[in-house]
């Protein structure tokens, strides 16, 4: 298992991405899954960078743990910010709004919501609040293409 704990900022994205991609290659995931790993990771991390901590938080950290198996990869992303479950929509209305947005034309299309949509669609994602931390678990496998 490989791990990194870094400041929750844009500057940390590249190192965390490299850690996950190395683990994904170790797991021998194919190229299409590798690209989904990269996308889902960026969406989850950017969500934490932008929203997890208040601007005056003394310490803003994010941790990534990667565990590679044969054709499988598990990523755990942990932050110590405000409780937030990116997997379950807050309510059904919000989800309905997102679905309507996916079909909306240019004038009515709202810019948000796609990051969470990609997390839910391209990975097997689960969430737990553990102590004072948000832990998002993302699973990928070569056999079960998540589309």
């Amino acid at each position, binding site marked *: 298992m490989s791990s990194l704990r870094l400041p929750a900022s844009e500057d940390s994205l590249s190192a965390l991405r490299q850690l996950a991609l190395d683990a994904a290659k170790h797991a021998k995931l194919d190229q299409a899954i590798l*690209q989904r790993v990269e996308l889902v990771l960026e969406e989850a991390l950017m969500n934490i960078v932008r929203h997890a901590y208040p601007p005056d938080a003394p310490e803003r950290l994010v941790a990534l743990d990667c565990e590679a198996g044969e054709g499988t990869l598990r990523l755990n992303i942990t932050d110590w910010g405000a409780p937030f479950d990116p997997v379950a929509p807050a309510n059904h209305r919000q989800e309905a709004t997102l679905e309507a947005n*996916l079909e909306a034309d240019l004038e009515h299309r709202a810019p948000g919501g*796609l990051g969470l949509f990609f997390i839910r669609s391209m990975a097997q994602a689960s969430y737990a609040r553990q102590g004072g931390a948000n832990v998002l678990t993302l699973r990928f496998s070569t056999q079960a293409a998540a589309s």
Partner: protein
Amino acid sequence: MEFTKNKEGVFLVLAVTGRLDAITARDFEEECKACIASGEKRLVVDLAGLEYISSAGLRSILAVAKLLKPLGGDLAFCDLAGIVAEVFAMSGFAKLLPVFATRQEALARA
């Protein structure tokens, strides 16, 4: 991310290579805004060389498309592959904006 610009009749073709992510989305938006500021209204973005796109990239595309619409212009895309094509399809952007298989098809419009 790198840009190559070519004027093709009424269209400006912007070939983009590299990654369109949370770090580079601003560069893409600025590049397009500069083209619009210099009078271009019909942009064709060739994504053959784009390796990767995330929701931050899509947000910058949406911002540019919304900027062009009231000017009577448009923002079209061609040559999508891999994760870029997947992300366009899943997000509904492939229906929201004109997307063409090849640059020739994008330029063949009236």
